[in-house]
Structures are given as C-alpha cells and as structure tokens.
C-alpha cells in the first residue's frame, strides 16, 4: 500500500498545488515541498527497514522488499502491480530527492502560472515513480506515457525562446518510439497467450517465455529503441540538447536527473531479462552504440557555446557508459551502471541548476558572453567547479565509482570497446574544464553586478554536494541495496562471456 501512496501523494499534491495558487504565489512551492518531503520520509522508512523478504511477487527472484498487486482490467490480465526492490528504491529515492531540488531551484525563476507549473512537476515525478515501480507491463506503459505529457507542458509553457520547437521534438521522439514499445509489449503478451491461452501483462509471467529467436530480436528492438531514445543514445539523441536548452531549470533537473534514468532502468529491468538470448546476441552492437555515444557526446559537448547544450551533450556521453555497462552484463558493470545512474543524476542536475542560475542572472546561456565571473560569484563558481570535477570522473566522487565499475566489468566482456570507452575519460576534462575556463576564469569582460548563491541555493547545493561525496567515499551503502537485485538478474540471465 505504501507504494501506491508514494505515487498517489504526488498526484494529490499536484492538484493541491494547482489549487493552492489562490492562497499566494509561494503556496504551490510549499505544498510541493511538503508532499515531496512526505514521500522522502516514506522512502527513508523503507530504506531503513529494508530487508529483502522472500518471494513476495511469486516471481522466481526473491529480492523484492514491497509488493502491491490489485486486479485492474482482469479481462486482459492487467493488474495494478507495483513492487519495489533495492534497485527501484535507489531510483525512487533519487527521484524524490531531485524533485525537492527542482522545486527549490525554481523558487524565484517561475513567476507565471506557478500552481500549474508545480502540478506538472509533481505529475511528471509521479509518472517517473510509477515507471520505477510498475511490474505490470501495461501499467508500466501507462506511467511511461504519463510522465511525458506534463514534461512536454513544462517545456512548452515555461521554456525559453525556442520552446515550442523543442517541446514538440521531445514529444515526437518519445511518442514515436514508445509506440514501438507498445507494439513489442502486445507482441509479447500475444506470444504468451498463444502458449498458455491466458492474458497476462505481469512481468513475472512474461519472464522466461519461449520465444522464436527472430521474433525475440524484433520485440527486443522495440523496447530497446524506446529506452535508448530516452537514455538517450546516439543516434536517437538529438531531442535532448534542444529539450534541455529550452526547458526551465526544474525541467532540466528532472529531465537529466531522473527521466533519462527511466531509459536505463528499462534496459536493465526489461530488455535483458525479457529477451536474454536476443540481448546477448545484440550485446556487441549495443555496447558499440554506447561507446559511440560516449565519444560522440563528448565531441559534441566540446563544440558547444551554449552552457545548457554543452551539459546536455555531456549527459549523452555519460549515459553511454550505462549502455556499455548494461550490455556487458556482469556484476561489476551492472553495479557500475546503477552507480552511474545515481551519480549522474545528482551531478547533471546540479550542473543544470548552475546553468539555470547563470541564465537567471545573465539572461544568456552563451559562454562567449561570459568570462571572469569568479570574483563576482565565488560560491556559484566554486560549486560549478566541484560538479564539473565530479562529472569528469574524479575519484572520491560518485561518477568515478560508476564509470570505473562499468569499465572494469566491460573489460571482461570486450577489451577493444572498453579501451575506446576509456577514451571518454580523456575527453571529459577537455569539455568540463572549458566551461570553468570560459565562464568563471579568464579576464572579466564587464562588471555585471550579479548576485551570488543565497541561503536557499546554498542549502540545496549543500545537499547535493554531500550526496556526491557520500556516493564517492562510501558507495557501499548503495551497492548493498542493488546487489541482491543485480545478482538475481545475473542469475536469471547469464551472458556467456
């Protein structure tokens, strides 16, 4: 039941926030913070009391912590089935945490239709939580669609100069590819129907289906393309730079921090376990795609002059590591992929908050118009430096753990591809440090009289810095949570390396 409430509180809170605008312009923000805090408490409670209990779902694996299953459309075997294990717990915690950050960072940025803004924000988050929790493929698809529409509105209404183009592009890319996924889901259910004569959309029922290899490959590709578009991986990535550049800060935070992770989660939870053989035969192309994303994303990031666009391309580069990690499919690479999801969630969200803060202050995102801002905004500059360093994979911070584990694992799967992926480590400082150089260092062009980070921004950045360092020096606390899950998946599907 808690799982249901996790999502429902946000939906309810969204409505309340919309309505609350009548009570004052700051009211929706407070309401959103309140419901997210409530969610965070629930998550913390689950985390503290989490002892994976046995066989909750009836599925073969036994790593589920909580399970909620009621019949929904029984005629087609569709259930409202939510379940949580260590992996989803980590991602749910990330979502709620970044949700609070997103609310806090748009405190002064959003002045119009504040209530509706928060409604959309909370509904997106609810959709994301649903995606991380749903164990019924129909329900999963439902949440998958549900998170896109409020996100689309966030970009289209509160975005920047070119918002309509960007939001429609975002919508089309995700919509067209999720159609492929829908087809694949239906195909999968139909195969099961032919085998057993009953309908079921349940994850546990659809695992271990006997599939014709050719059909299996096609169905897997349906899922794969949908998830890789969301990730995004080259060549399905071009919606991301536009969406990020145009989105309001909170939109970018949610987009980079958690929305992209739904793609990674999908690959991990659905693509490989549902289609083990097809996924294995597709591993080399998928890892190649990951390596291409790493290098191409880095190359494109280097070419940018728009801060937000640059950070967007770095996301593509970092997500490439996740793709490599998932398709290398061994304990190191999988743990690495999960750590990268979490660490990149924090670091890229922080970088987008910084980019947003710069835009709020300078009314431009063009790095050519900036320079020498350090003495004016030392706190902002130092924090930007911290997260750039984190993003380039400095040991002791979260991203390093993720990328290092991915590479140590993928090295066993494919030496050549890993060596190419490692080139991303050389590329990372090239693009990361350029931001610092062009924005904060160098000669000051003119005095802007900017205001530095205040108490609100320092608080939220403080939380993110602590999270980043925690992930870097004691990742074990998170690895322990995801370990039983990944071990189960690893048992379920064994790649013959």
């Amino acid at each position, binding site marked *: 039941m808690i799982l249901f409430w996790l999502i429902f509180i946000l939906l309810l809170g969204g409505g309340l926030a919309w309505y609350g605008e009548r009570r004052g312009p700051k009211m929706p923000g407070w309401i959103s913070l309140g419901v997210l805090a409530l969610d965070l408490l629930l998550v913390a409670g689950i985390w503290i009391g989490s002892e994976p209990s046995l066989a909750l779902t009836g599925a073969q694996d036994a790593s589920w912590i909580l399970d909620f299953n009621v019949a929904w459309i029984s005629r087609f075997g569709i259930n409202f089935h939510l379940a949580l294990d260590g992996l989803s717990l980590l991602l749910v915690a990330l979502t709620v945490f970044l949700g609070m950050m997103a609310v806090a960072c748009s405190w002064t940025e959003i002045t119009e239709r504040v209530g509706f803004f928060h409604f959309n924000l909370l509904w997106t988050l609810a959709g994301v939580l649903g995606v991380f929790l749903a164990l019924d493929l129909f329900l999963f698809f439902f949440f998958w669609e549900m998170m896109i529409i409020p996100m689309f509105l966030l970009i289209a209404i509160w975005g920047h100069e070119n918002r309509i183009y960007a939001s429609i592009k975002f919508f089309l890319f995700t919509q067209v590819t999720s159609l492929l996924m829908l087809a694949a889901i239906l195909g999968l259910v139909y195969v099961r129907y032919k085998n057993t004569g009953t309908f079921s959309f349940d994850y546990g029922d659809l695992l271990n289906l006997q599939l014709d290899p050719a059909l299996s490959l096609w169905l897997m590709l349906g899922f794969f393309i949908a998830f890789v578009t969301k990730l995004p991986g080259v060549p399905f990535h071009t919606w991301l730079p536009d969406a990020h550049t145009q989105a309001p800060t909170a939109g970018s935070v949610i987009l980079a921090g958690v929305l992209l992770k739904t793609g990674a989660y999908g690959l991990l939870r659905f693509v490989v376990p549902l289609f083990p053989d097809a996924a294995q035969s597709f591993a080399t192309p998928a890892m190649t795609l990951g390596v291409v994303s790493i290098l191409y994303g880095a190359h494109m990031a280097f070419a940018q002059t728009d801060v937000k666009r640059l950070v967007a391309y770095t996301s593509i580069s970092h997500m490439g590591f996740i793709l490599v990690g998932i398709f290398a499919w061994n304990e190191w690479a999988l743990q690495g992929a999960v750590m990268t999801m979490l660490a990149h969630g924090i670091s890229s969200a922080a970088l987008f908050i910084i980019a947003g803060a710069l835009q709020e202050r300078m009314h431009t995102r063009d790095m050519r118009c900036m320079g020498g801002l350090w003495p004016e905004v030392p706190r902002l500059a*130092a924090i930007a430096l911290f997260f750039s360093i984190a993003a380039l994979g400095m040991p002791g911070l979260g991203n390093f753990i993720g990328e290092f584990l991915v590479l*140590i694992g993928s090295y066993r799967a494919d030496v050549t591809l890993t060596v190419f992926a490692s080139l991303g480590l050389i590329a990372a400082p090239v693009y990361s440090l350029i931001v610092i150089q062009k924005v904060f260092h160098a000669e000051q062009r003119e005095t802007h009289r900017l205001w530095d980070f205040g108490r609100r921004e320092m608080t939220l950045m403080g939380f993110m810095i602590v999270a980043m360092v925690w992930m870097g020096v004691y990742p074990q606390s998170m690895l322990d949570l995801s370990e039983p899950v990944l071990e189960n998946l690893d048992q379920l599907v064994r790649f013959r390396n």
Partner: protein
Amino acid sequence: MLQFLWLVPTLPLLGFLVLVLTEGKLPNKTVQTIGVGSVFGSALLSAMIGIEFLGSPTSAYIQTLWTWMEVGPFKPQISLYLDHLSLIMLFVITGVGFLIHLYSAGFMEEDPGYSRFFSYMNLFVFAMLILVLGDNLVLLFLGWEGVGLCSYLLIGFWYTNADYGYAARKAFVVTRVGDTAMAVGLFFLFMHLETLQIQPLMEKAASEWPVGSALPAIAAALLLGGAIGKSAQFPLQVWLPDAMAGPTPISALIHAATMVTAGVYLVARTHVLFELAPDVQFAVAVIATITLLISGFTALTQTDIKRILAYSTISQIGYMFLGLGVGAWSAAIFHLMTHAFFKALLFLGAGGVIHCFHHEHDIFKMGGLGRNLPVTFASFLIGGAALSALPFTSGHYSKDEILLTAFHSGGYGPWFWFAGVVGAFVTVIYTFRLIFIAFFGPKIHDVDEHFDGRMRIPLLILCVLALLGGLVQMPLDSVFHQESEIVHAQGFDWVEAITTGVPLAGLVAAYLVFLKGAFKPETILATNWGRSLQQFWYCGWGMDALYIFLFVRPIEWLAVVNRNDIVDSLYNGVAAFSRICYQGLAWTQTGRLRWYAAGMIVGGVLVIGLGGMQ
C-alpha cells in the same frame, strides 16, 4: 604512534575543508595558521611515526579504515599501507611540503586569493599522501587523480590570465592521457589477477606469470603510461614547462618535489611487474635516456628562469627513470629524495628572485644579483651544485649511484651510462649558465631582498638538506629484494672517475664560456644551422607543434564543422520530407471540380488497366 597514521593525510584534508567552508573570509594570519599548521602537524606526526616504524622490526604496517566498495572479488578498501618506501615519500611530502607551505605564507602574502591558495595546497598534500599510502591501486589512483586536479587548480591559480588557464588544462588533459592508460592497466590487472591490492597483486603476479611473458609486459606497459604522463617523460612531457604558469611555490612543491615524481614511485611500487617484463623495463631506460637528453638540451636554450628549471626537472626525473630502467630501485628513490631537496630549493630561490624582481623571469634582464640577494644566491649556488652533482653534494651521491649501476647493468648499460654522463655535462652547463648570467656579471637593476623569516628559514633548511641529504642511508632493502648491485672494482676505477669528473669539467666549461667569455655562444647562433638548432631545441624539439598538428587542430576542426550535429540533419530530413509531401498534397487540393473529375477518371482508367494486365 602507528595507529595515528590515518591522521597524517587527514590533517591537511581538514585544513582544506576549513579553508573552503569559511569562503576566504578569514584573516590572513588565521589562514596561515590553518594552512601551514595542518601540514606542520602531518610532518611532525610523520616524523614520530617514522621513528617508531624504523625502530620496529616490522617491514609493513597496514591500517584499514573502511571498505570502499565491494562487488564480488573487487574489494578496494580505504586502507593505508606503510613500508619503508612510503615512509620516505611521507617524509619528503610532509617535510618539504611543510617548508614550501611556510615559504608560501610569506610569498603569497599580498595575493587576494590567499585562502584559496592554501586550501588547494592542503588538498594537494592530502591527495599526495593518499597516493603514497594507498594500499591498493584504486586508492592510489584516487590520490593520483587528486594531485592532478590540484596541479590543474594551482597552475591556473591566477585565473584572469587565459594563457595560464590553457596551461592548466593542458597539464590536466595530457596527464589524463597517461592516467587513462593506467586505468586500463588496472582493468587488465584485475581481470587477470582478481585483486588490486598492491602486495597480494605483486605476489600473485610473481607466482603466476613467468618472466618475459606477454601478460606482465602489457600490465607494466599500461602502468608505465600513467607514470610517464604524471612524471613528464617522453613523449608526454609537453605539459610541464607550461605548468610554470602557476605561482612559484607550486612549481617547487608539485612540479619539482612531489607530484611529478609520482611516476617514479608508481614504477618502484610495482617493480615486481617490471622485473617480470624485462622488455618494458628496457623501454623505461630508453624513454628515460631520450627524455633526459632532449630536455637537457632544451634547458640550454631557455631564457625564462622557471622554464630552465622545469626542463631540468624533466631531465632529472629522466635520471630517476633510468635508475628504474636498470633496476637501481633504491638509487632512483634516493635521487627522488635529493632532487626534492635541491629542486625545491632552486625553485624557491627562483621564487625569491621573481618576488624581488617584480615578476621578471628573463635571466638576461638580471645580472649581478649575487650581492643584492645573498640568501637567494646561496640557495642557487648550493642547489645548482647539487643539481650538477658536484662532489660532496647530495645530488652527487644519488646520480652517481644511478649512473654506475647503469654501467654495470650489462647489455646496453654502458650506452645508458654514456648518455647519462653527457646529460650530466649538459646539466652543469645550463645550471651554471643560469647562475653566472643572473647572479654574476654587471648589475642591471638594483633590487633588495625583502624576505621575512617565513621565506628565509625554509631556504636555509633546504640548503642544508641539499648539501647533506646524500648522507642518508636508504632503508629500502625490505622493499626491493633483488637489486642490481654496483660492483666496485679494485683500485682505480675509470668509470667512477669519469662519472665524478664530468660535472667538474662542465663547471670549468661553463665558467669559461659564461663568465670569462672565452667562447661566445653567439658565434654558433650566427650560423644558419646553429640558429635553427637553437630554435628547434628552444621550442622543446617541436613536440608541442606536433601535437597541435596531430590532435588539437583536427579536433577543433571537427568541432567547428559539426557544431550543429550531423545526426540531427537526418531527422530534419524526415521533417523536410513530410513537409514536401504535405505541400504536394496541398497543391492538388485546388477546389476546381474539373481537376477532381479528371483525377478520378485517370485513376479509374489506371486501376482498370492494371487489373486487365493481371
């Protein structure tokens, strides 16, 4: 005392945290107390730990703090490993580090970024200590990257100058190339030996891999990649001369005494792998020889006081690598230590010159400084003598040990020795060229030495160390079990005589050329080939130009060409195609009945016609 080992790196880390969290709002006095005090604390603690450790019979002490991450058999811990090798490094880092911190307290007094400077410095000391104390390669890698980061931050410390920023990024990226090779080396080692904890790893390698087989060669070569990046060896040495953009104490601490020698430490730490891979060890010696010669010749042509010292550092690290290459492990570490003393001294002396000379770097604009800057002068004389390996200085003992071991190492040993001796000759020439031009001769400007105790005392202590540091016995027998021993010949040994004599000959030559004017270097420069040779050496043998041509330009070109993402044009193509279809269809919708009727008739005829053909 040993149980307080964790405090040694923690103190500077705390200093860093305090300085960062107070956002530079503390007065300079407090900053100085925290910044210098934390490193002083570490130094004191290291000394006490060292005394206890040397007095005890144990050969290693391990302190495990917590498990960093555990994924299957991959289980790096936050664990400190102290043996005689890390102890020497500990002494050098905290000892010389403290002296340089003290010096900086005076040197940076006027700088608005005083607090920021000390926070970076403290972070550096922390990272460097982790590097040498890490008990597994992943933790070592943390320190390794950490010192690289601090090096970046401190080279670009005066960030308003875009060139300095460029130099800083260049240093970071070039060393990162090596670091990436090293990271791949770690993946490789873990895949084959299932652990990254250094001591078990070495034992496993020694027991599982035969000497001369391919696997240890690959592992050693990859680690060597990291070492040559960090230690500025050929072909990754290009970043170090530019790194001189940082404040001079940085050059002394990071780019002379500690960080740049991390590569030497890494190779010494993993010497078992290199012993298993004689080919790679030979490559180390070759790289070292190339490096020490080309950078020595480059130093001859420089005019910037710091760049001369920078090239000299590259060259001296070349000697350390030569030691590693011929199996003189402890001699290499010995030279690392003495070099830390005399090169720190020289850099701090150079800092004094620059400090008193209003940021002038060109030695030809100096002259006759000897009388005005007595302490600096003494520093340069002693430091220069040690750098030149003149008899009875610390540099003499360490360098001779390396060269003699090289000679006796068999195979190409004598050739390495010969190259080393030529390099030693060049070293004296460029060192005393600097000293004679800047400190002797006619006075060009009047300057005075306005040092306070904070700057004078470190110089004096380092003078003593540079002179007497050679008397220290390296207690490294428990670390390096099989050493190439120097075979001392009976009676007169001409090899020893030449090795010792060449620096003296160099001194005489430098005296004749630069002080007496017996031979004018300008006569060489007047000739065409002399001029182009000077140019070639001056720009570091064209390596920068080569890399710009090979890597920088193509990448920049690609970035400009593809700024709008070629992949997007694919989707724009889809959009354009739909638009054309739409326009085509819209064009048919004319609203004229006869067009519609004609269309229907033509269509009908076509359909029937096609049906008839079936």
